[in-house]
């Protein structure tokens, strides 16, 4: 991995100022910092995971204050239930349940209220632990920092910082040469990071399983999530309704008028897809099923 000292040297050479007469090390470092912030934020080049204890009866937590350099969520794993929480938008949850922020129960959905606050639906009644996968923005750099980027990323930092220094000296034609090179390769770099990102997670999962050569599909089978109104008549007498797919084990959440129904108390599930309610819903009431299926 090339060091920041190498980067200083290369940029000074690009600027034809090896003795740092016109461009001080502090000036170059500032340009490298700008490049590092921009590159890491745009290309998802820094992936992390962390264990987060979610306190009981809590809807939101500020991830920015809990995870240093936090940028954005990739996924939330719920180890006790061996499942990932489903990502949803606040708008969708608002449509499904107007009081979702104060609903206590089994957490199976996460949302980002804004870029800092992550919410879960439903809020747990006791403390639970999640594993959060997220990306970081580049950290604050100093003269002897270690910059962890690929060789290609390193070249991009060099291009941007060189162009940025030249721009500050109003050498705009030369600056454009270096900056165009940076922006021209940025999208390609982001794509390459995405592949590396997926591969690194799969490798890590494989190591924990004691397996090698796993593909994404063998580690995490592609489940589909669905929210639907089960098929059946609301007339005050009918109690049978049918789902479109067979839910995966423990994944079904059934609601009547936004109130969660309890399996084997308020309803039963048979033949994989058949729901029988203990009380017949009336016309105008709203039945909703949320589940995953393969």
């Amino acid at each position, binding site marked *: 991995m090339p060091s920041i000292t190498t980067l200083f040297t290369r940029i000074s050479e690009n600027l034809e100022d090896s003795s740092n007469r016109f461009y001080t090390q502090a000036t170059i470092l500032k340009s490298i910092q700008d490049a590092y912030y921009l590159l890491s934020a745009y290309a998802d080049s820094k992936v992390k995971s962390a264990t987060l204890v979610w306190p009981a009866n809590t809807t939101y937590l500020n991830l920015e204050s809990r995870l240093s350099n936090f940028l954005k969520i990739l996924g939330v794993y719920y180890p006790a*239930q061996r499942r990932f929480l489903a990502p949803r938008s606040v708008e969708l949850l608002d449509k499904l349940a107007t009081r979702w922020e104060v609903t206590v129960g089994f957490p199976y959905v996460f949302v980002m209220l804004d870029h800092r606050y992550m919410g879960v639906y439903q809020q747990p009644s006791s403390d639970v632990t999640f594993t959060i996968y997220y990306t970081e923005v580049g950290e604050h750099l100093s003269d002897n920092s270690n910059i962890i980027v690929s060789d290609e990323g390193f070249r991009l930092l060099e291009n941007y910082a060189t162009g940025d220094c030249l721009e500050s000296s109003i050498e705009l034609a030369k600056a454009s040469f270096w900056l165009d090179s940076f922006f021209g390769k940025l999208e390609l770099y982001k794509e390459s990071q995405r592949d590396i990102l997926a591969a690194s997670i799969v490798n890590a999962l494989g190591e924990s399983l004691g397996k090698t050569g796993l593909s994404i599909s063998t580690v995490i089978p592609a489940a589909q999530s669905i929210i639907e109104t089960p098929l059946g008549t609301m007339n005050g007498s009918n109690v049978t309704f049918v789902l479109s797919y067979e839910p995966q084990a423990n994944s079904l959440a059934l609601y009547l008028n936004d109130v969660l129904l309890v399996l084997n108390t308020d309803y039963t599930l048979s033949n994989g897809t058949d729901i029988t309610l203990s009380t017949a819903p009336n016309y105008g009431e709203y039945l909703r099923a949320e589940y995953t299926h393969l």
Partner: protein
Amino acid sequence: MIFSSETIQRFAEDGEEWVARTLRCIRQRISLSITAGVSEYELPSYVLGVSRLLWCGTKLSSTRSASLDFKFADLIGFTADMQGTPQCYFMSDATPRTIKFYPTPSIGIAKATIGLYSSEIPYRVILDIYRTPGTSEDDEDTRLFYWALPWLIKHYVEYKCYSQEGKAQDLELANYHKKQFDEKLRLLQLIYSDMFSFRPKAFMPTSPTLTSRHREFNLPEKYIQE
């Protein structure tokens, strides 16, 4: 120095506000103090818009219709002076910082400054707002992303400085920085929208429950150590 530090500071603040207005990326949660019998409330001047409103934990719907009185009159026999628990709120384009509740609140509710993301949700009237940037003394939550300010706002400042009439005016330089600002603002917009897209989905399917295959593998509770 060609430009005074006051000029640079002023343009830096203008630039930050421009970005906040364009991307609507500074969000905050505030609460309202409600007085029984009063339907209209003035929001603080930093509010650019309201994305959601919770009345004691219940999300109220918004309407842009100016004929709300008639709408309610038709539907539920609503009258303008009717009081009760508000069912929706109204904000006009003409008065974007005035919020009006329907029906008029029949009870008073005090505002809170803490616990708006947790314990106070069931007891307060909470607004999720888009806002202009706070000052440097304000809470960091009210500022633009610290990691974007250095590479973005400098172009806005230089664009504005070199556009000014006077000896230092240089329209070529101004245009160069305007182009850089627009390009980088577009990048920030992409970064910001990506924060809510939960990619890459290749390894994070929408809602998987780990099935029998994983139980065969005797999957440990914690997959990856920090």
